Structures are given as C-alpha cells and as structure tokens.
C-alpha cells in the first residue's frame, strides 16, 4: 500500500469528518477507553475542563451519530447521566486512530 502523503490524505475521506473537532475527539477518546463502563457527565466535565453547554451539545452530536448512548443511573443516591460508547463509535474511533498513526508516521 503506498504511504505517500497524498494517498493518506485522500484516505481520510473514508472517515467521518464531523468527529474531527478537538472536543469530540477528546470525548470519543476518553469514553472509548472506559469500554462498557462509560463516564458520567460530571466526570467528563471535570476531567476534560469543558463547560456545560459545549459538553452537552457535543455529546448530543456524538449520540445522534450513533457513536454514544446515554442512560440515567443512580450513584450514591444521586441521579446522573452516564455516557458509553457504542460498537459503531468504537469502530469509528479505531479507524480514526489508525489513520492518525499512518498520517503521523508518513515522512512527508
């Protein structure tokens, strides 16, 4: 398979361009790492230092794309929103990581 920069850049068309924003990449990466356990809204907000509005909007975009699912859970008597990655989200994140690796390894 050719590893020239042009081929690699053109292969990026197979990826979902809507994921390529810093906030969405941060969200997908951090939630994917937790597998079926997921993370709550308040944990994502604190650890990634994203404000409520931006976090809520971007989580919803990822949900609408089918990459995340959310559910209400109870922890220590409090109702919280838990976000977990879907199989589709996991596959997309794997494709993105694989493409990024090739892009960074390209010597152009």
């Amino acid at each position, binding site marked *: 398979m050719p590893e020239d920069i042009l081929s690699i850049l053109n292969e990026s068309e197979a990826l979902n361009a809507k994921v390529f924003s810093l906030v969405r990449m941060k969200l997908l990466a*951090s*939630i994917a*790492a*937790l*597998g*079926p*356990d997921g*993370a709550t809204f*308040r*944990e*994502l907000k*604190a*650890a*990634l230092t994203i404000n409520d509005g931006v976090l809520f909007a971007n989580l919803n975009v990822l949900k609408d794309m089918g990459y995340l699912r959310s559910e209400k*859970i*109870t*922890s*220590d008597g409090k109702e*919280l929103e*838990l976000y977990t990655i879907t199989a589709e989200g996991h596959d997309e994140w794997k494709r993105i990581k694989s493409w990024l690796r090739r892009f960074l390894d390209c010597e152009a």
Partner: protein
Amino acid sequence: MNMKKHKKVIAFFKELGFAFTISRFDDRLIAQKLVCLLELRGINLGYPCSIYVRGPYSPNLTEDLFSFKNEFENLETSARLSSTDKETAGDLGRIFGLKPVPLEIGATYGYYAISQNCDPLEALRQVKRLKPFYSEAQVALGISKAKEFLFRPTPGDLEELKKETGIWQRASLKTLEH
C-alpha cells in the same frame, strides 16, 4: 500474572462481603477503587491503574468484570488469600466499608500520592480538580481514610509520636490525681 488473575480479586471481594452486581454503576465503581487501593497498598493483583476521566482506573479489570460476570456475581473462586491478604482486606473493609464516595476519593488521593509521588498538597489539588462535585467534608474524609489505609506508621514514627504526646499524657494523668 496468569490468566486467572481475576480469581484473586474475587477472593478479596468474598473476604470483604462485597455482593457485586455488574449492572450496578456503584458496584463497578467500588470494584475499581477496591482493586486500585489494594494495588497501592502493595498487593499485586495484575490490574495496575492509571488516570482516566473516572480517576484511577484499570480498563483490564473492566474487561474481566464483564467477561467473568457470573464468577464475580456468584463470588466463585478457587483462589485463597494469605493471612497478610486477609489482614489487608480487613483493614480495607474496616476503614472504607463498601462506600463509593470515600473509596473514590481515597483511591484518587492514594494514586497521586504514591504512584505519582506527589506531595500531600498536590495530591489534594488533583483530587479537587478531578472530583469537584464532592464536598470539602467528603474529600477530607476520603483522604483521611486513604492515609489510614495506605500510610502505616513505622516503629520510628510511633516512637516520635510517643515522645510528642507523652508530655500531654503525663499532664492529664497528673490532673486526674487531684
């Protein structure tokens, strides 16, 4: 560490009387933090933690909790704990109980203080950064429990303490004489 490392974790859960249910968020949280605290105390369970958005966390443990769900839920294990392991489990249960909030705060503080070699103030700052949704009182309690479980006084520390408090003890005994 062999393929059956989860069996020793189950033995600890059994010793602690932890009735784990995979579908409960708090149970998965408690499982993560118990294992993290045991690892920090020096027990090698094969599930080292590193920092994720959930604080100190082991994705391998999550994988095994789901893969061996029935064994964890029924506390099925052939592994036996040594007397030292049992003593450690006893300390863990006595100090933390099976309460998610102190366990979460304690594990986060312990991770920064021990694995990252942070000084106590920096470890506290990291706990507050990652867990701002807990109150000052909850943070103080979790950290105090972590210190009790993870930092055991050496004979030298106890001697120092005896010297430091001896004068007060003698004074109070003298007061009782009157």
